[in-house]
Each structure stands twice: as structure tokens, then as C-alpha cells.
């Protein structure tokens, strides 16, 4: 049994099937990418796994436990964190505070202690701030710690969101197009960051359009088309799969996926 097990997930909106019977597994320390042409259902699949949508059929299991449709905060408590393609940042808080909030789960004490400012509460707040600085350093944002998050560049916000997700010490991290809208240098930084995180034993599920990034990072690639899984395997295998080539480039094309890179 894999750490994250997706079993036959499906959902439809107003009679249109967006995702149908998709299954795959994700192991500790591995990177699995979900790719597919626009509208293939990648983000919908992601939203079902992370509790944003309730799937119509199928199950999501985390370490054997059925977590299908659980609220995002309950998933986070069980070790699953995610980032969003269109960023979910606390824009009006500082960069450091954004990450400190990420420590909420692990450093939180009794509410009354916080309300009355007991010493334990201050110690926990300090621990969270120190942890947050370490993470900011890891994603290369330590110099921006005191700035308001809303003032950061797009690429920096992407890294901030990853740092915040890491603060929750996830076992499974879902990254929704972490490199979208980033320039080459920023993509490189995110590439390196994802590798590092996986090496620390976090299972990573990636939705990404940047094929070079996907081919380089992934241990396994799951290909969706029209809501169905059409291929699964390592990058070399998937990029030679005729069904995948057809889905991307249309029937009768012999060009390989490299054209996309």
C-alpha cells in the first residue's frame, strides 16, 4: 500500500464527466507528476485529492486511512499540504508571518495561554519564528522576511507558498503548477527546491506544464486526457507512448514530446 493511494476517483459537473476512474499511488520520497493537455482534468483531480471537491466516486487513502473529502485543515493535520496554481497567500501579512502561520499545527498551545500571554505561549511563538526563518533561508527568501507578502514577485510568492506548506511538516505535498508564470531562473530555483524536499522523505505530487521540469524531476508520470488516465510510467516510457503523443499533438503526428520542451 502506497503512502498516498488514489483509487478510481471520478467527478462530473452538470452531467459532464471531468475526471473518470483515475487511480495511482505515491511513495515516500518520490515525485509523481500529473500531466495532460489543457482541460484534461489535472486541477480537478488535485482538488478532489486535497478535499476542495468531494469526488463522486472513488477513494483517497493516506497511509491506509480513508481521507476522501476531508476538510483541508483536517488533511493538513494528517500530513497532506498543498499549494495553489493561483497562489493562496496572506497578502497583508509579512513574509515571515506567512510562514509562522504554517507552524500553527505543531507549535500551537492552549488558546487561553495565548490569550493571557503566558510564558509557554511566548516560547512557542519564538520557536515558530525561528523555524520560519530557517525555511525562508531554504527557499532563498530570508532577506525578504519583514516585507509585506503582497509586495513580492510572482516567483518569490511561489517559493513562499512552498515554505509555508513545509512548515506544516507534510508527508505528502501537492504542488499545483509551481513553475507556472516563472521565468527560467525562478523555474530553476523551484526545480532545485522540489528535489531537495523530496530527498527529505516527502512524497510530492506535481501538476506542471513545464515539460522539461516534469521530465527531469519525476519518478513517475501519470498522463490524463479527457479526464481519463491514458498512461503511467517513468518519463522515458511515457514520452514514447503513442497514446500520449497523440493526446498532445493530435492523431497522426509522429513528433515526440520533446517538441514541447
Amino acid at each position: 500500500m502506497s503512502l498516498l493511494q488514489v483509487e478510481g476517483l471520478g467527478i462530473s459537473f452538470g452531467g459532464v464527466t471531468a475526471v473518470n476512474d483515475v487511480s495511482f499511488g505515491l511513495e515516500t520520497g518520490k515525485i509523481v507528476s500529473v500531466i495532460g493537455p489543457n482541460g484534461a482534468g489535472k486541477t480537478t483531480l488535485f482538488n478532489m485529492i486535497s478535499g476542495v471537491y468531494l469526488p463522486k466516486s472513488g477513494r483517497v487513502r493516506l497511509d491506509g486511512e480513508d481521507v476522501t473529502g476531508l476538510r483541508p485543515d483536517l488533511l493538513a493535520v494528517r500530513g497532506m499540504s498543498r499549494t495553489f496554481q493561483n497562489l493562496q497567500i496572506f497578502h497583508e501579512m509579512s513574509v515571515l508571518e506567512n510562514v509562522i502561520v504554517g507552524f500553527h499545527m505543531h507549535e500551537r498551545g492552549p488558546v487561553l495561554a495565548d490569550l493571557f500571554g503566558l510564558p509557554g505561549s511566548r516560547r512557542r511563538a519564538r520557536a515558530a519564528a525561528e523555524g520560519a526563518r530557517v525555511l525562508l533561508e531554504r527557499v532563498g527568501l530570508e532577506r525578504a522576511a519583514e516585507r509585506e507578502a503582497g509586495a513580492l514577485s510572482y516567483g518569490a510568492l511561489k517559493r513562499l507558498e512552498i515554505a509555508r506548506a513545509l512548515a506544516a511538516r507534510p508527508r505528502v505535498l501537492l504542488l499545483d503548477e509551481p513553475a507556472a508564470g516563472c521565468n527560467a531562473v525562478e523555474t530553476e530555483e523551484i526545480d532545485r527546491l522540489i528535489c531537495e524536499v523530496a530527498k527529505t522523505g516527502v512524497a510530492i505530487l506535481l501538476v506542471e506544464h513545464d515539460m522539461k521540469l516534469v521530465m527531469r524531476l519525476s519518478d513517475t508520470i501519470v498522463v490524463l486526457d479527457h479526464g481519463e488516465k491514458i498512461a503511467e510510467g517513468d518519463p522515458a516510457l511515457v514520452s514514447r507512448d503513442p497514446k500520449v503523443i497523440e493526446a498532445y499533438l493530435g492523431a497522426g503526428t509522429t513528433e515526440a514530446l520533446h517538441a514541447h520542451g
Partner: protein
Amino acid sequence: MSDLLQFLVSGVTVGAVYALVALGFTIIYNASDVVNFAQGEFVMLGGMISVAGVAAGLPLPLAALIAIALTAAIGVALNTFAIEPARGAPVVSLIIITIGASIFIRGVTQIVLDKGTHRLPSFSGDDPIHVLGATVLPQSLWVVAGAVAIFVALWLFFTRTLTGRAVLATSNNRLAAQLVGINTRFVMTLSFALSAAIGALAGVLITPILPTSFEIGISLALKGFAAAMLGGMGNPKGALAGGLLLGLMEALTAGYISSHYKDAVAFFVILAVLFAFPRGLYGSNPVERV
């Protein structure tokens, strides 16, 4: 000159209470986008329950503590039984629910307590202090000091503790807050408890100066709302500034124009803010990146 000073003193005293009511609005608005019109009832309950406690022979500090705790529990009950079940309803419906709740609380108070008008004894005597020709009641100092203490304590809570930051984070971006494991329902409960407790404390502080009865909640809610609008809904600094400004405007109107127009000031402020600067003094400009 001494007249002016006198007006300023009473303006700041009443303004401090408005600021606390406005703060109550702010906390709940931030957590849930709901403007809680039962906020005035919390102030009323704080006063009325303390009065009942003192009448039953309890020492004032104990009666006040009980009143604050009970009111906080009523605030939680309001959220659990009236707001939470209507989750997902449009904000306007939720606001109407709070108006209904305020009528309900008023009715129950009449029955369980009474319909009379009551005062609490002053905390430290009624001998006025003379300052530059103006007289200051010691209770006014209690009111202002209490308000300042609450604002400082809340500021520390929101900026220095993880729970406080979780509340801020929830008001800033609820989905992102859930993503990092914050239980946003709990944040709602906490916000209602905090608002109710702050309202009740304001009630305890002011009742030695302004007599309380079951029906004072409406006008306090309206004035606190005006103060919150003036300061910019959702901003604690704005609540403080708006409350003090409104109190001062009222006192000056009562002093220099006529006390008949005193209560009209709040309505004038609401209209003026809505027409001229709907975001208020400290209101933020919502920006969303896409």
C-alpha cells in the same frame, strides 16, 4: 475653555465605549464577514448580569467576571446555534440573523432579569477629580483605562501569539488558513467569544456612568457600527479612532448645539462615510492577484 475640556472628557469616555463596541464588530467581521448587530446586546448583558450579581450579594469584581464569562458563552451559543447552521447563506441573511438574535436576547433579558433601569456602583467612589476647571469622574478613568488595556492586550494577542496569528490569517485568506491546518470554525467560535467578552466588559465599565436596561443594546450597536464604519470596517485601529471620534463629535454637538441632536451624529456619520469615503479612515483597498 473649561467647557471645551469638559466636553472632551465626556466625549473620550463615551468614545472609549463606542471603540470597544466597534472592536467587537471588527473581530467578528474579520473572522466571518458578518456584521453582528447583536454586538450591542453583549454590552447590555455585561451591565445587566453584573447588576443582577451585585443585587444577589456578590462582590462587584466577581459579578463582573461572571457577567463577562456568561456573555462570552452566549456569544458562542449565538455562533453555534444561529450563524453556524446557516453557513453558506449570503452574508445579508447572516446579518439579518444577528438582528433577530438581538431581539431574542432583549426579550429573554426582560423576562429572566427585569425591565428596570439600573446602575452599578462606581469602582472607586464618585468624588470628581478637578483638572483645569473640568471635572472628571473616577469611573471615566476606569472606562478609558479599560479600553486602552483591551486594545493593547488584543494587539499583543494578534501580533505575538500563534492563535492570534491564526485568527488574522483566517480573516486574510480563509482557504490558505485551512491549508496550513487552521480550524477556521474554531476561529469563528473564538471570535464570537472574544467579541462578546469585550462587549460585556464595556458594559461593566460604563454602567456606573450610563444606567443600563434591557433596551440599551440597539443604540449602542448602531453607534458602535457607525464608529466601525468611520474607522474602516475590519480594522482594529480604525475601531479605536472611529469610536473616539464619534464620542467626541457627540459630546461637542451636545455641548455647543443641542443635546437633542446628540444621537443624530452617529447617523450623520454613517451617511457621510457611505457617501464620501466608504472604506473609512483605515479601510484597506482589496487587491487580488490573478
